[in-house]
């Protein structure tokens, strides 16, 4: 009797241990997704609370559809666009709170800082908001995915299209810091390669509020196109003042980094006719409309490409965790890279060795007030740029992980 009991006990214990070890594949049986973003600064409209919402939507949808046997939790924090705050928070999350992946990370400086910490702690980073190309070049890591867009794709898409359509002489208004200069450099190369000419540029302090002096210099250059190699409030103020000084529509503006939130805030009267490149637009097809409508009901704004990409990247990550049956960073990343991405955001998207998620980009032209049917009906999609043309080819990569 005792023997049998003992045997049962031993069997149960062994089974429990076995089951336990199966669960231990996912630490604490919980996958924790951290959203580290700009909640209050310049980028809070294009990422911020909307990115947190998109993440929550991804988690809810994943749990409802995939019924995983692990829990998924969300934590979020404001990095205030400061590298030190971002890396400290990421470290705290990894060490004390068992966060599995840190995501979003708008602004290049915070992104690069957190990538280093994550690599050191063997965790995954998913980047939707930051734009600079060093993320997948000099600073690339094997545990990072640069998901939504980068400055190469934007410059490439917009500068090429505008030059081909006759805008063959350019003058740049450039924000005087690394991002603006990189954007100017990338765009100039594309303009020249497409047969256009760059007549000059002026570097304005960052941030600036009055652009009239710089705009008059651009006007005096006689260039057909004034390229805005800046972002956020600098871009919106420059566009508004160009209209005020009668520079547009005689000369045209090309915004090299513009989000739908910028167009919304400026209004169509100031932005009509402008070309821009985007990774997502809510009104592309039934799938994008359906998802965006759900987002809109909660946020009262249509999603930017950063927020849509955030949803897609988190969903792809969670599915990979489920498929791999572990939250081990290396195995999950291998699974993510092996699986193509097909959802409302990307068609046949894939993650390259340098961490670049390659997907189609869209060349959009801003509608005139007469063409728009109402708020958020802002873009004509003029061209779909296939992923392989949109992004920097691997042959030009400066990432040491890429074998040539």
């Amino acid at each position, binding site marked *: 009797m005792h023997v049998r009991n003992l045997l049962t006990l031993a069997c149960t214990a062994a089974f429990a241990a076995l089951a336990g070890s199966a669960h231990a594949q996912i630490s604490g049986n919980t996958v924790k997704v951290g959203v580290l973003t700009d909640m*209050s*600064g*310049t*980028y*809070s*409209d*294009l990422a911020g609370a909307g990115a947190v919402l998109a993440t929550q939507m991804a988690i809810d949808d994943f749990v409802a559809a995939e019924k995983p046997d692990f829990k998924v939790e969300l934590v979020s924090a404001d990095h205030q666009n400061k590298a030190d705050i971002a890396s400290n928070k990421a470290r705290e999350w990894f060490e004390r709170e068992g966060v599995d992946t840190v995501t979003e990370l708008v602004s290049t400086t915070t992104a690069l800082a957190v990538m280093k910490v994550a690599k050191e702690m063997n965790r995954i980073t998913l980047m939707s908001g930051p734009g600079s190309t060093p993320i997948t070049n000099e600073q690339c890591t094997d545990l990072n995915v640069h998901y939504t867009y980068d400055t190469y794709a934007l410059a490439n898409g917009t500068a090429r299209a505008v030059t081909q359509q006759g805008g063959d002489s350019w003058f740049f208004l450039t924000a*005087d810091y690394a991002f603006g200069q990189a954007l100017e450099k990338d765009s100039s190369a594309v303009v020249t390669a497409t047969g256009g000419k760059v007549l000059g540029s*002026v*570097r*304005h*302090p960052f*941030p*600036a*509020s*009055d652009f*009239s*002096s*710089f705009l*008059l*210099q651009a006007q*005096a250059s006689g260039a057909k196109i004034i390229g805005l190699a800046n972002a*956020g*409030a600098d871009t*919106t*103020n420059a566009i*508004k*003042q160009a209209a*005020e*000084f*009668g520079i547009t529509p005689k000369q045209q503006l090309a915004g090299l980094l513009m989000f739908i*939130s*910028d167009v*919304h*805030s*400026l*209004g169509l*009267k*100031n932005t009509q006719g402008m070309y821009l490149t985007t990774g997502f637009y809510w009104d592309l097809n039934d799938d994008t409309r359906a998802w965006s409508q759900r987002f809109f009901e909660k946020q009262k704004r249509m999603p930017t490409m950063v927020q849509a990409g955030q949803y897609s990247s988190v969903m792809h990550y969670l599915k990979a965790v489920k498929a791999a049956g572990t939250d081990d960073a290396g195995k999950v990343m291998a699974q993510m890279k092996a699986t193509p991405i097909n959802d409302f955001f990307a068609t046949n998207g894939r993650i390259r060795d340098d961490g670049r998620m390659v997907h189609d980009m869209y060349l959009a032209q801003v509608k005139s007030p007469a063409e728009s049917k109402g708020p958020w009906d802002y873009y004509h999609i003029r061209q779909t740029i296939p992923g392989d043309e949109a992004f920097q080819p691997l042959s030009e990569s400066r990432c040491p992980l890429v074998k040539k």
Partner: protein
Amino acid sequence: MEIFGIPSALFGSQLLIGLINGSFYAILSLGLAIIFGLLNIINFAHGAQYMMGAFVAWIALTRFGINYWAALLLSPVLIGLLGVVLERTMLRKLYKLDHLYGLLLTFGLALIFEGVFRDRYGISGQSYEVPELLQGGINLGFMFLPIYRAWVVVAALTVCFGTWFMIEKTKLGAYLRAGTENPQMVQALGINVPLLITFTYGYGVALAAFAGVLAAPIYQVSPMMGSNLIIVVFAVVVIGGMGSIMGSIVTGLGLGLIEGLTRVFYPEASAVVVFVIMVIVLLVRPAGLFGRTA
């Protein structure tokens, strides 16, 4: 024809633009100078009050259909009243203390105001159209001058010199000046000094709101529009001489011109040129260009 290697047309237009920006500096630094001169408070909330002035105009137009011209009056009155409330409930308690306390209090208030507007309206800003009467521009030959910008110069200078006249040449101004020199004596003569001081703070704040309404059609109306400007305006006040009324007006215009020229010759330095001048002035004349010796 060229001036220092720059085509004269471009040179002329940059001077004019410098004058336009200078009038913003002048009207903002004037408000700060009045408040500092008469209350000894370094009003760090000035930028936030300027921002709120612009927002009141925007809200008035989009919510209530109140046009620009009415907003030009309404917004300074409302924000000025808010200033009066702040003075009565908070600032009043700090007059006997070090400058630092007033600075910290108003800085905190600025952060709160900006935070509330950021939370409510987001960061990208709102668009405010140029009023119909002032749309379009004049071709001056060397540049296209938007009528609205010309109006800004006229309006700002009128208000600046009106204020200077009121303080330096009228009886009310004389009371104000006397009240700051020797409040007990003036009080003994039967003049309500605390009321004068409340009025002064309200007026200084109203000037900021007025500048905000002037700025609304030019810049995006955004919660951070004031914080970008306020540091430069403080430098203008320091260069002009803390508390000097005429000094702040003249310095505001002059620095606008210098900044405009820097944008042609060496644009990268245009954000710092004001501070370089501030350092030089402080070394040579610590009380500022127009300041009485400290």
